[in-house]
């Protein structure tokens, strides 16, 4: 499988490039949209919710603390949601290609992961740019970010690949996932603080893998501290396990996948 990826590296790289290009090639502002869209979203949340929630961020002496908090959480969330929603559909969307041309199918998840990573690294750069503007300096803790990205990708891709394979046979999965993703967003403390959650529900929050990932991003980017490693490792191990299972299932399903596409 790894050998196949290496042999098709040119195709993977050019697919990622094309993917980025084709999204923006015919718009006036081009690649700027990649950053403007999430920034606009952050601006909306900040505008609507800052009065309500800003007071509840302890220990930060920056007027823009809530914006920074939001952007940290959104960086984590947008990588997750992009990876998940795209991998659910990746086999269905590439159905005609898979039917007609023989190429290692494992390229598809790699392309999705690569292109989502590029998008979100750019988004991260934009976020850091905004931080600098508002006078929030990066600290050494930012060196944790690559590790956080890796854990995020492992978990998201593990889940996404699993759902992507099932979606080929049961197309309802993609429909359900758009709803679930929205619900999940509000169940994860991205726009609000975990402190506002009542004590009895805290336990349930601990079971949400995205809580740990988002929390780590916030810890690093807002507070400039090392993330809570135990939760992160737990999510990473869980993600690896899921990735293993879904790869296994992917191999089993691959011969039948083309039949029903």
């Amino acid at each position, binding site marked *: 499988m790894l050998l196949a990826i290496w042999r*098709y590296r*040119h195709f993977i790289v050019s697919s990622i490039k094309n993917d980025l290009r084709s999204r923006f090639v*015919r718009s006036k502002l081009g690649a700027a949209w990649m950053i403007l869209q999430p920034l606009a979203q952050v601006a909306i949340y900040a505008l609507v919710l800052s009065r309500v929630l800003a007071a509840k961020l302890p220990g930060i002496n920056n007027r823009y603390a809530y914006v920074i908090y939001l952007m940290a959480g959104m960086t984590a969330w947008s990588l997750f949601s992009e990876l998940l929603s795209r991998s659910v559909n990746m086999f269905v969307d590439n159905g005609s290609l*898979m039917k007609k*041309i*023989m190429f290692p199918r494992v390229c598809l998840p790699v392309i999705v992961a690569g292109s989502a990573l590029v998008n979100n690294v750019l988004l991260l750069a934009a976020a850091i740019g905004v931080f600098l503007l508002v006078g929030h300096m990066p600290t050494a803790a930012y060196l944790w970010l690559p590790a956080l990205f890796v854990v995020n990708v492992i978990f998201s891709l593990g889940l996404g690949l699993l759902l992507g394979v099932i979606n080929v046979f049961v197309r309802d999965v993609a429909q359900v996932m758009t709803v679930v993703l929205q619900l999940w967003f509000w169940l994860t403390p991205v726009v609000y603080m975990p402190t506002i959650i009542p004590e009895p529900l805290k336990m349930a929050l601990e079971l949400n893998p995205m809580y740990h990932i988002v929390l780590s991003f916030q810890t690093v980017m807002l507070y400039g501290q090392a993330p809570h490693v135990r939760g992160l490792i737990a999510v990473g191990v869980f993600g690896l396990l899921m990735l293993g299972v879904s790869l296994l*299932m992917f191999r089993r399903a691959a011969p039948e996948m*083309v*039949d029903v596409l």
Partner: protein
Amino acid sequence: MTDKLLTVNALGKAYRDYGTEWKRFASWVGVQVQPKVEHWALKDVSFNVAHGEAIGIVGQNGAGKSTLLKLITGTLRATSGSLAVNGRIAAILELGMGFNPDLSGRENVYHVAGLMGFSRKAIDGVIDDIEEFAEIGSYFNEPTRTYSTGMQMRVAFSTATAFRPDALIVDEALSVGDAYFQHKCFKRIREFRELGTSLLIVSHDSGAVQSLCDRALLLDGGRMVKDGDPAEIMDLYNALIAERENRTVMISKHESGRVQTVSGTREASVEQIALLNEAGDPIEFVDVGQPVVLHIKVAVREDIPRLVLGYMIKDRLGQPVFGTNTHHTGQALENVKAGQCVQFRIAFPMNLGPGSYSVSTALASSETHLVNNYEWRDLALVFSVSNMSRTRFVGTAWVPPVIETAQL
């Protein structure tokens, strides 16, 4: 290491419906599940292809041709049997597959060649050849969404054949594009063949199959009907088209060693056929340009509302040279009674080049043999043309020239 490029053994492909998808998921984890419906698109197909051999695959729609090709290219996985490929296969199945409309032709070449597993460096070496072969001028650097279908096909074909594969699969896709480019494509395909590339050609065009292929396979209903000589297979295929309604096909060995196919409902049949010279004597060897009469006697067994006789002269490879019928000439016979005998005398000058030819006859009620096929007879008559009195020439047609020269 065998000398066979492709070995196909008892190959079968079934599409399975499990009723509920849970059963399918269970089958992945090793649970034995009986599929609710199994549809076999291909069953028990065996053949092999040697290096450098050209094979035509013919059959009606739904006969399993595409399934077979997809199995060979590897996009589909076989349900039963085995398939061994010994070399790189390139397919010209769906030209333009994988093209991104916003990319230029050049960028798409890189992208699609990458999809075929080539590295950037390898493509750098042939990109100029591809551009030159496609001949679409400055469009090569324009986005492919501005291309016509034919232009897209040009780029796609040039890319697919930029590297000589061990086997080339050619689908009907090749019929896109103008005559000039088609010629160019076939020229390249022929060149590949001479260099040892095997060909797998799917086509309904008997001309392409017979002129390019060494052998042909006839598929019907997912099974292989016959593996044999292209001319023989094309005759059988034509007969099969007419045999939808459970009519009989008779295959017998003609005295020349070729296989004769006779099919039809037999309300009328050709009883006697001969080629006569000016004196009215039957001949087998004809001089170029000699006036002859094709004499056909038809026996009618049942009342027929309308009788049309068609005949076709074919060359050694089975390619049509000339053919017409009495429907086109406005001489169809109405209300022919049982027991009657009809005589046809078709006079024409033998303006054909030297070689061996055969005559096929068809008795039907209209211009095609697909409506009422009373009788279709291949190789009804075989004759040879030799050049005894004309100037030396080559080709299948005698087109008498008048050449004037002037030295100025």
